[in-house]
């Protein structure tokens, strides 16, 4: 869909609005980059604004103000490498298992008839409506009994079953023409082949949408990993960021905080910039409904 065929007043206004919104949305990022380069001995004040990376000294000579010291210090505060790895394990390990569970359950609820189907679906859907946060203490006890405390598995296991994904895949699978499945059956395909060759290729957008929701929510997660883990090798990035923030008790070291935050997010940002075309296009043009 492209609404504007001709350049007219509306289209210019829309371009201007696009630029305006983008600039507003980018400001926090730009501000944090500048702040991260600023020495701790130069906090903001109205005389020394953020954008000024140079200033006159007492002899009137302009000297640069930027420094990498914040990054050097932020590096020391937490074991970022292992936090990073752990975050990736957490997010990927959750997602890969979810792919299987939501596909199987989605198919069963979409295309199979069995006793108690609706009741079981509603039971599963309850998961969407009960915030995981309020079950923290109870779930901790369960993890403990399973002997999984302080492991990557402990972080992932409560999310392996996903009501949201099940629902999404059920809807996607219901859109797949039943004739395709029948044709595959006639060719002698078993259930897994049918899922792999018929259902999944036709439901990629939903699977992708679910994957994005899953990855972004677990990438953000702090409270559950903080409680269920304690070794630096197991803890994810958010715990490191949290440590960075709590360090500011003795003076909000915003430069340090921004440096650490940027360090954590920059690989993702680079990845996104590199692949954003593929990412958004494949997601968008495949047409999630």
């Amino acid at each position, binding site marked *: 869909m492209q609404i504007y065929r001709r350049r007219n007043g509306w289209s210019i206004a829309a371009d201007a609005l696009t630029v305006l919104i983008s600039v507003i949305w980018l400001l926090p990022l730009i501000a944090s980059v500048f702040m991260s380069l600023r020495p*701790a001995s130069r906090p903001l004040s*109205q005389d020394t604004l953020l954008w000024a990376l140079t200033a006159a000294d007492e002899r009137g000579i302009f000297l640069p103000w930027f420094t990498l010291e914040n990054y050097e210090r932020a590096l020391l505060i*937490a074991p970022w490498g292992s936090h990073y790895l752990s975050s990736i394990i957490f997010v990927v390990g959750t997602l890969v298992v979810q792919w299987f569970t939501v596909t199987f359950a989605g198919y069963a609820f979409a295309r199979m008839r069995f006793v108690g189907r609706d009741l079981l679906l509603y039971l599963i859907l309850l998961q969407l409506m009960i915030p995981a946060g309020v079950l923290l203490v109870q779930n901790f*006890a369960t993890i403990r009994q399973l002997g999984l405390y302080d492991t990557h598995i402990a972080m992932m296991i409560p999310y392996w079953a996903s009501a949201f994904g099940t629902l999404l895949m059920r809807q996607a699978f219901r859109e797949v023409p039943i004739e395709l499945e029948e044709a595959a059956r006639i060719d002698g395909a078993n259930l897994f082949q049918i899922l792999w060759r018929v259902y999944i290729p036709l439901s990629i957008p939903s699977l992708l949408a679910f994957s994005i929701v899953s990855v972004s929510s677990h990438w953000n997660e702090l409270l559950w990993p*903080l409680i269920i883990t304690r070794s630096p090798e197991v803890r994810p990035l958010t715990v490191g960021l949290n440590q960075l923030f709590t360090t500011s008790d003795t003076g*909000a070291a915003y430069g340090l905080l921004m440096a650490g935050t940027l360090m954590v997010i920059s690989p993702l940002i680079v990845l996104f910039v590199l692949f954003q075309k593929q990412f958004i296009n494949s997601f968008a043009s495949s047409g999630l409904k």
Partner: protein
Amino acid sequence: MIRFVRWLGVSALLAGSLAFSTAQETITIDFYYPTAVDAPINAIIQEYADQFMAQNPGIRINPVYTGTYTQTRDTINTEIAGGGKGPDVAVMLTTDLYSFIEEGVIIPLDDYIATLDNPDAFVADFFPALWLNSLDEDGTIWSIPFQRSTPIMFYNADLFAEKGLEVPTNLDELRAVAAALTEPDGSRWGLMIPVQGTFPIWMFQSFAIAHGQNLVSDDPAEVFLNTPEALEAVTALTELGTVDGVMPAGGTAWGDTPSAFVAGQAAMIYHTTGSLTTILNNAPFTVGTAFLPSGPAGADGTGFGAPTGGGNLYIFDTPDNPRSEAQLEAAWKWVQFLASPEVQSDWGTRTGYIAARISAWDIDPLKSRAEEFPQYTVARDQLATAGKEFSSYRAIDIQNIINSTLSQIISGAVPLSEAEAVLANAQAQIDNLLADYR
């Protein structure tokens, strides 16, 4: 006599455990610590752990960073409630003492102290004010001071010299001096007190003590919030912003206050001594430190008195997962090590916390640091007049009540004219909680 018998028992067990530990059995001590200062804490703690392990081959220290004090406490409580064993040793707030005692998850340390060569000298080498919150009402020692602090006043000495001003010693002088240092265009405040947000209770407590009534006494079932002194204190604190106009109305945020001070936007601030190292490192001007100004309390009207604060070392032993004597003994060794004059001297220098041992101040690196920067000694000397930090049964809930109430008044969400009613309601909530203990 009972104590002596217990002592004998413990010594016998200790002797046994020592023999046991030489038999190549490695004991692991999980050590939880919350970070609260801007220093590479993980590296420092690991350094101490390595030193300790080199001296004690049978013991392995496993240091675990556990977030803020609150997160650490929640982690410990969740673990123990979920059937876990929790840490072996943890640095936790002194204000958590009664919660841990009531839950039965920490052990008293008197028996361990009694096994030392000279128990009395050990106890006497800590500043007495730091023991106030380490004992229960019967005098049993439950925790050992480790990263302790107290609020002090920091001032921009260059500015004082330039304007020819004297450092204020009481609240009236404070108002006058702060007024002289406040710039009307908002570029500089005379004073900043971090009572917005996290825990206004700590700064408020210093005002309450200076007005003649601490929030707590020796009785852990008693809290004094609805008193004329508390009302005066909270009024004085609020009016510094709204009436005197020498501090931002509603106070400032905890972490922003030292930053604003370093940036020259505040001439004086109240803050923890734990910030001293950071402030000295960053401020482009001469930093002065002083006692908190006195209030109207006392016969001569010089009611000094800041509370103490910070974290103590606790040894955990939970009913569901009882530790062996050898395990507890190893934990005690680690506690002793962290509280030793050598470690305290180093820790105080690198973080800014008050080194808790008197003798720590006579050895390097703290000795030379204090000679070079006499600012470090102010907090230590102020301990002589320090009051007891908040401590009671149901301390978590009661501090929440007090913080929330103070926040309502100081932020202006509730006008000062209704402050008395709000304090009375809060006191009623507190008394409801404490009714079980009276």
